[in-house]
């Protein structure tokens, strides 16, 4: 399409505005963490690193980070195993209900989090409570793993479709057992897809608030829950500002890693 000069300029301005809208709020969070004032009024009266040191000493936030990391690692481990198993079944076999299986994998992330949350909450209440198992970190991990399976599945299934089974067959023709072929041939082919899927699963779990709200026991506070609880408390505002700024800065890491892990793996959770 041969766009005129005016059309190009208009698009350029439109795109620039779009990118400004995307990045201004994130920059604002960074600047606001240096605001010496407790209120969020703009422009800030000055800049200070004082609240960063206050936040570093905040045990509530630190504990919440630790709980989030544990939940994220647990959910990622389960999702890696289950997601990979389904990916192999769907990519390497034809069976009745194959389409249904891939649909059910996507469902936990397609339905609103609150529906998934209350469903799991009532199920845990009716099945686990009589067994003496209350809500706690364990139920958070189970809840998170349920919607993390899909991102591992997506990454692994995309890789398996790209690499046909003939490599494994060749290995087995050369005398390798099924297990040996998996360890020496299939696994190395899948490694970066597993890493990308695991990374996404961890990020998804680390960010999740709705399902966490309904599956966490009374003493379990993940970082999103901590932020949500403290967001509207004026006393805690400076610490929340710093935690938010740290999270914005940390989000660069997964992007860098995802870029390193080759371009053919799905780089986002839902798209």
């Amino acid at each position, binding site marked *: *399409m*041969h766009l005129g000069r005016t*059309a190009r300029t208009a*698009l350029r301005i439109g*795109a620039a505005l*779009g*990118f400004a*809208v*995307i*990045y201004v*709020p*994130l920059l604002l969070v960074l600047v*606001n963490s240096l605001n010496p004032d407790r209120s*969020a*009024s*703009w422009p800030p009266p000055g800049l200070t690193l004082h609240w960063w040191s206050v936040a570093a000493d905040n045990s509530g936030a630190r504990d919440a980070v630790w709980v989030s990391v544990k939940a994220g690692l647990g959910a990622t481990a389960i999702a890696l*195993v*289950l*997601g990979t*198993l389904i990916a192999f*079944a769907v990519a390497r*076999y034809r069976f009745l209900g194959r389409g249904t*299986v891939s649909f*059910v994998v996507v469902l*936990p992330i*397609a*339905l*609103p*989090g*609150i*529906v*998934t949350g*209350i*469903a*799991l*909450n*009532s199920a845990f209440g009716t099945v686990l409570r009589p067994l003496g198992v209350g809500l706690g970190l364990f139920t958070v991990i189970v809840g998170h*793993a349920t919607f993390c*399976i899909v991102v591992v599945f997506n990454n692994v299934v995309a890789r398996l479709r790209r690499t046909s089974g003939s490599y494994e067959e060749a290995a087995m023709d050369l005398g390798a*057992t*099924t297990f*040996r072929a998996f360890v020496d041939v299939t696994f190395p082919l899948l490694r970066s897809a597993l890493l990308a899927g695991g990374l996404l699963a961890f*990020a998804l779990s*680390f*960010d999740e*608030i709705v399902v966490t709200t*309904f599956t966490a026991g009374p003493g379990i506070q993940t970082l999103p829950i901590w*932020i*949500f609880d403290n967001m*509207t408390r004026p006393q805690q505002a400076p610490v929340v500002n710093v935690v938010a700024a740290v999270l914005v800065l940390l*989000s*660069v890491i*997964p*992007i860098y890693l*995802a*870029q390193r892990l080759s371009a053919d793996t799905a*780089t*986002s959770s*839902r*798209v």
Partner: protein
Amino acid sequence: MTTDTPPAAGRGTVRRLAGALHTRPRLRLTLLLTAPLLWLAVLYLGSLTVLFVSAFWTTNSFTSEVVKVWSTDNFHTLFTTPVFRQVILRSVGVALAVTVLCAVIAFPVAFYTARVAGPRWRPLLVVAILTPLWASYLVKVYAWRLILSEGGLADWMLAPFGLSGPGFGLPATVLTLTYLWLPYMILPIHTALEQLPANLLDASADLGARAGRTFRSVVLPMVLPSVAAGSVFTFSLSLGDYITVQIVGGKTQLIGNLVYSNIELNLPMAAALGTVPVVVIVLYLLAIRRTGALNSL
């Protein structure tokens, strides 16, 4: 099976097991699917089924105990109580408004990144679109709380024009949700535009179409399925949201808030309310299935 060196007893067992697996593909498939299906079908679908069944139960108004007797009372209440009707309509309206806003903002951005920007810049711009996807959901909502708060960035920017920001309320909710889900709309449109064959555009120009005509008759019809695919996320994520509304919505209520506030006192009612977004989303998926959008999800 012969090998050069006689295998040790342990390795022999592994070999026999591997051989048994190799000759029985059905067994391999069963082993692959058992654990995941137990998890997803029993734990997840089972929970969902119990939830939807419980929408037909009621609660004793004195003791708040769940009464497991089948009745459609909850759905009757849902459709006859004006407040519930209003909230449902408002939620669908918010989801549609967010979807339209996302599409309108995403189009020029995606068009620029896919077809106008220099080819060397394009991968970098895609990363720039993806970056906010990794930033925490709560942090992004928090950023908008800062912007829209009294004396915040919005007030400061609008002050020279004698205006003030929208404050917390329904417009703030729509604005924040649009911001949150925008990348989910930009990316599919970008991909579709990037894959648009250049010779189609040339052919259109050769036949005498100007840019506007080419856009309407060639570009738009080919990109529409991707807009529909993006809209599944913007629509469904907006419809279920209740956290954003709590943070920037002021007194605004959406379906999610009603579900949340009913969950302790009246679980069957919360379940009935929860079926509403699920049904709306399924209807939405069926409606846009014709565009072929679901194949590109």
